[in-house]
Each structure stands twice: as C-alpha cells, then as structure tokens.
C-alpha cells in the first residue's frame, strides 16, 4: 500500500521536477523576413510555420498555438460626432498614445477556450490588451467607449484581425498559418510572436521580425519629400506644368 502511494507520488512529481528545463519549445520560421513596398505593391502573404520540440512524451492537456503580428505603433486621435444645433460635428475626442497600425491574431481554436484571462493579461495577446498596456490619456469622460470604437473602426478597415481556427496543427507537432498583410502597410518593424499553450497556459513563446520598407521609386519619392520639401514641391509643380503643356501640344498635333 505504502509502496503504491510512493509510486504514485513519484509519477506525479516526475513531470513537475522536469520543469527546470521546459518540456516543450517552439522552433519557428517565416516565409520572408523583409517586405519591400514598391510601386505595384498590393499586399503580401506571410507564411508563419514551425514545430514543437520536446525531449519527452507530450504532457497532458490540450495543445494550442497562437500567432500574433503587430505593426509599428503610432499616436492616434479618436473623435466622436455629436449633434450640436441640429448638425453633426466632431465634439469630444481622446488621444491614444500609441496603437499598432496593424494587428493580427491567428489561433488553433476559439480564443476564449484556449487562452485564460490571466494569461492574456500577462502576455498581452489580444488587441485590447496591447492597446491598454500602453495607456490612454483620459480626456473625455467615457474613454472606454472611444477605445472600443477605435477597435471597431480599425477592424472594419482590416487593420485589426482575429483569425480563429486559422493555425493548422498537425500531429501535435507541426503548425503553420498564412497572414495576409494589407496593401496600406505602414513602414517599420513588424513583430511576430508565437505562443505555445497547454490547457490555457503559455508554456513557450518565440519572437520574430519582419522588416517592411519602401523600396525603389517609392523610397526615393518619400525621402525627397521629407528631406528636400521645397525642391520636392517645386518638382511637383514643374511636372504639373509640363504635363499640362504637353497635353495641350499633343492635342494640337492630334487635331492638325
């Protein structure tokens, strides 16, 4: 009897004792780690893939994978229209210090089922956690409503996405997901985070980066507009005047 209890105790303590070295880790890769925005750029598809590495047999509990992609953050103004003297005008507003320009979450199951609230709070996985983590300057009375509206608007624009059941997990080991980056990308470093979950708890995580840069003509125009604004303005004018004249001359030839 005592021997049996001891055996059971050993079995229970076994996996717990091995926690010094994590039983499962993520090995991950991206189909590309740089995106060049050229004149004909109309979005890009990134393949995020990887495998779960484990030295011992898989532990108990449901295995899930969450992948997040986060674009560079910018400050925002959220405005609300109110009816003043019969017309709708921008009335109240709040400033959001920093909100990601793009945020996608891809999962292997329903987010509520696979991720516990405390773990979400700790790791900052869902979009509302990412924004709240930075903090809002409270200028209007109901800043909660403003943040919700901002997420609604940006979700409508395709900037914020929740893609449940879009990570494919094969044989409890291999996983992959495709994330489509939209055409109206903001330049900067895109942070890719991968989380491995067991029974609602994050057991391993990984980070990767995608460098999104304007290239070629786009870069040239952008740099010139920033660095030589006066010359840029004058060149724009020249182009306009010359094309106006050229069209006129071309039509004269056409009619003659």
């Amino acid at each position, binding site marked *: 009897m005592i021997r049996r209890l001891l055996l059971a105790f050993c079995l229970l303590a076994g996996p717990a004792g091995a926690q010094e070295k994590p039983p499962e880790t993520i090995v991950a890769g991206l189909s590309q780690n740089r995106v060049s925005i050229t004149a*004909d750029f109309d979005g890009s598809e990134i393949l995020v893939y990887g495998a779960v590495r484990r030295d011992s047999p898989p532990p108990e509990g449901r295995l899930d994978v969450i992948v997040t992609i986060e674009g560079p953050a*910018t400050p925002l103004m959220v405005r*609300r229209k109110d009816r003043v003297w019969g017309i*709708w005008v921008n009335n109240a507003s709040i400033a959001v210090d920093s909100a990601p320009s793009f945020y996608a979450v891809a999962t292997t199951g329903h987010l509520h089922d696979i991720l516990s609230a405390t773990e979400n709070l700790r790791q900052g996985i869902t979009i509302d956690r990412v924004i709240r983590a930075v903090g809002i300057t409270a200028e209007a009375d109901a800043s909660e409503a403003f943040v919700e509206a901002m997420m609604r608007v940006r979700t409508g624009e395709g900037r914020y996405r929740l893609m449940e059941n879009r990570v494919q997990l094969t044989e409890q080991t291999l996983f992959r997901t495709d994330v489509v980056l939209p*055409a*109206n990308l903001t330049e900067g470093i895109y942070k890719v985070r991968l989380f491995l979950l067991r029974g609602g708890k994050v057991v391993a995580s990984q980070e990767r980066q995608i460098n999104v840069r304007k290239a070629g003509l786009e870069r040239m*125009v952008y740099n010139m507009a920033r660095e030589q604004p006066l010359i840029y303005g004058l060149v724009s004018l020249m182009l306009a005047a010359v*094309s106006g004249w050229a069209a006129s001359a071309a039509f004269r030839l056409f009619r003659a």
Partner: protein
Amino acid sequence: MQIYLPIAEVSVDAFLILGIGGIVGFLSGMFGVGGGFLITPLLFFIGVPPAVAVATGANQVVASSVSGVLAQLKRKAVDFRMGFVLLAGGVGGSGIGIWVFAWMKAKGQVDLFVQLSYVLFLGLIGAMMLQESLRALLRSRKPNAPVRRAHVHNWVHGLPLKMKFRASGLYISVIPPVLVGALVGFLAAIMGVGGGFIMVPAMIYLLGMPTKVVVGTSLFQIIFVTAFTTVMHAVTSQTVDMMLALVLIFGGVIGAQIGARVGLRLKAEQLRILLSLLVLAVALRIAADLLIRPAELYSVMPGVLP
C-alpha cells in the same frame, strides 16, 4: 492595376485615379473651375487621407489649369491684365485666409468651419447661377421679349483708378476686381480650393465680364493660387503625393482638353446651368453629411500628440 502611393501610404487602383483625374479635368476645361471642390472629396472617398487629398488635389489643379489656359489662349480668351489684377487681390486675401484658418485650427473646429463654408457658398452661388441662367434661357426662347442690357451703369463706374481691360471690353475701376480677388483668395485659403467656382460667377455677375473670357482668365488666376498652395503644403506638412499627382494629372490634362472642346459646342446659358447644378449637388451632399446621423459616430485619425 494597383499602385502604392508613397506619401499617402495606401494602395489604390490606378484606373480609378485616372478616371477621377479625367472627370475633374473635363469639368475644369469646360467651366473654368479648377475642380478642387470635387477632387478633394473624391480622393477622400477612395481612402486617401484628407491632408494628402487637399495638397495633391492642388497640384493636379495646376496641371489641368495650365492645359485649360493653353486651350483658351488659342481662342484669345484670356484677359491677362484682369488676371493679374485679380491675382494681386487674391494674394492679400489668401494671406488673411491662412491666418484665419490657423486660428480656427487652434480652436479645434476647422472641419466644421470648412464644411459649413462649402455648404453656404456652394449653395448660394449654385442657386444664384441656376436662377439667373434659367431666366436667360427662357428669355432666349421668347424672341420678342425685351433684351436686358449686359451691364448697367451704376455706382461701381464712379470709382477712381479706372483701367482699360481690352480683352474683356471693360473700362472699370481696379477696386472691384481687387476686392473680388481678395474675397476669392480668402475663401480659397480657408476651403483649400482654387476658388474657380466663386471666381467664375463673380466675374460674370459682379464685374460684368463677357462669358467667353471668364473661363480662361479664371484658369489663369487659379494656376498661381494652386501653385502657391502646393508648395506651401509640400514645405509645411509634406503631404503632396507625387505618384498620386502624376496619375491624376495624366487623366486630368486629357480631360481638360476634351472639356474645353465640348465647352465650345455648348451655349453659355447651358454651360452655366450645368455648372450651377454641379455646384448645388456638391453643396447638398455636404449638407446631407452634416444633417443625417452618421452610421459610425467615431473617427480615427493618425495624429501627433499636442
């Protein structure tokens, strides 16, 4: 075919932009309006940020105005002397306008101010032109109706500093054109447009210029106003998108040439009725935005913290 705009940072359909440029250019060549009051809302509608739409719109108007002026020049329908007098007033007016704009911006109600001035001026001018040109059209249908004189002598002709405007066939004081130029320059700076839709009726009804020189002279004046605006925007806010401007311009200059030729075939009254209907339509559209409850009350703007 999608193209990515480096300054606006959005990807748009090149043919859509080409079409917008073409339509605005067509109207520009036909009526002598720069089309700023159309192009800005249209660009905004397809997802270009408002600041970029205003600045790039100005750049496109330069091109279509140059194209339009050259088409009018062959018909000797540009009154350069009048153009310069109007411009002199315009520079002063836009200086005051920019100052008032900055003041409204500090107050935080610049959007409303711009929208209200659009509704007010477009509505007023559109209604006035429509009423006047309909009356003229009806009069021309009745052959035995009494002919109204083109311009009646009134107190305006008693003002000093008279100048001869040969192309317009006018001998009037420079004070009214300078004041008209100043008013248009002021409104143009506030509303972010060239001001052609105010200039054209002002020339016809306030200065009594013949319709055939109005279009060319208005376009001539608009070139300078919008060129100034473009450079100002490029320097202060870096919102001129050259890529967007090029595609718009390509459509615009072709549209302007066709518009100028179609305009020749139409009678002056018909031209004015069409322009007034267009102006009224834009005014009603903006008024509807102000009066009807928007589907989404909130808007998100990328912005720097104060």
